């Protein structure tokens, strides 16, 4: 059963931000070595996913 409409773009944008934040946190904690050449594609991918969701919503 469907409940009220949710703004998918906002949900995806929030999830993408959480994912990026998690990556940065792991990098800060030393669990992950997030170098520049990996950070840029991650940010680009997050932006791309949000844009696609906005376009399809």
């Amino acid at each position, binding site marked *: 059963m469907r409940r009220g409409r949710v703004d998918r773009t906002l949900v995806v944008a929030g999830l993408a931000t959480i994912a990026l934040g998690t990556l940065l946190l792991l990098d800060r904690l030393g669990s992950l070595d997030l*170098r520049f*050449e990996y950070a840029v*594609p991650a940010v680009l*991918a997050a*932006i*791309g996913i949000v844009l*696609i969701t906005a*376009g*399809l919503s």
Partner: protein
Amino acid sequence: MSEAVELRRDPSHGYLGGVCAGFASRAGIDPILIRIGFIVAVAIGGVGIPLYALGWVLIPAEGPEKPAVQRLLTRSDTWLVAAGMGCLVAAGLLLLRAWDVWFVSDQILWPFVIAATGGALIWRQSQSAPERVAERAKLPRHTVNRAAAGAALVVGGALIFLYVNDALAPARDVVLPVLVMLVALTIILAPWWIRMVRGLADERAARIRSQERAEVAAHLHDSVLQTLALVQKRADDPREVAALARRQERELRAWLNNTRPLGEATLAGALEAAAAEVEADHHVPIDVVTVGDGPLDEPGAALVAAAREALVNASKFAGPEPISLYAEMADGRAEVFVRDRGPGFDVSAVPQDRRGVRDSIVGRMERHGGRATVHSTPGQGTEVELVMEP
């Protein structure tokens, strides 16, 4: 009676996009079987994932919804999706570069990316408004700007490619730059060419529809409307009215089924049959003289229909004096003259809403490559001349 089920996604019974459920519904099996196959395909190399994504994008969902690809091509905010796809592709390329799985040289890839972006802009712009071909001269400024930006990107990408490959040096081979420029021009001009071809096809379809509508209108005028007029005229004779209705029904059925009574397979036979029919309906004698004969093809049938309409007009307005129908057919050329000794009329004074002469005779002959001329002077009778050239 079995009916083929069209393949459609079924998101209401699926876990993701309803692709497996759609296939199961199409095949008439339990969706769990398809899902097991999908999981196996994922497990043995992951091929199931791109296939599922492809099905999600290409297969339309239940209901009137169109496939995602089709929606993307027609949406006004497709640039958002295109930009998102561009970001994802760029991210993938950078990741491949970081992993040293760099299979294409920077000198080729980045000019290609720039040119592809420009090409996508132009293609998107040209495909977004195919219905506004006629308004091409009034395209809004932002549309022109986008197309110009796309063209600049394509040319810029091509020039960068030539430069980094040292192909612009004067002593170098000139073939490569010419080829690249030709490819760039093709990318720029192809959408317009495609749109022009589509526009011509649409225009042709509209013209055919208009002609068919005129044919139907002329036929209805000559058959149903004329019979209804006769029914009103003979309302006091039920047997005559019933006979008229039966004949009209037969004629309409034959027309709908595209069948023709035997004996009317030639032009002369069809003209004589039409004259006999009009004579029976209107009780006005018609003298028929035919010289030669020809096949009753589509233009010939139009000639007969126009002659019949001229005979009906003459019977209605010039009776009870005999009407003359003279036809001469030779070498594919056919000429028909319908003459009466009635009161005549002023051709230029015929009201615009009268279809008889304008549509059923002149318009019909012109639509089929012939011509019709009405010679009439008030008080001196009328002659309708119909000519069909080979």
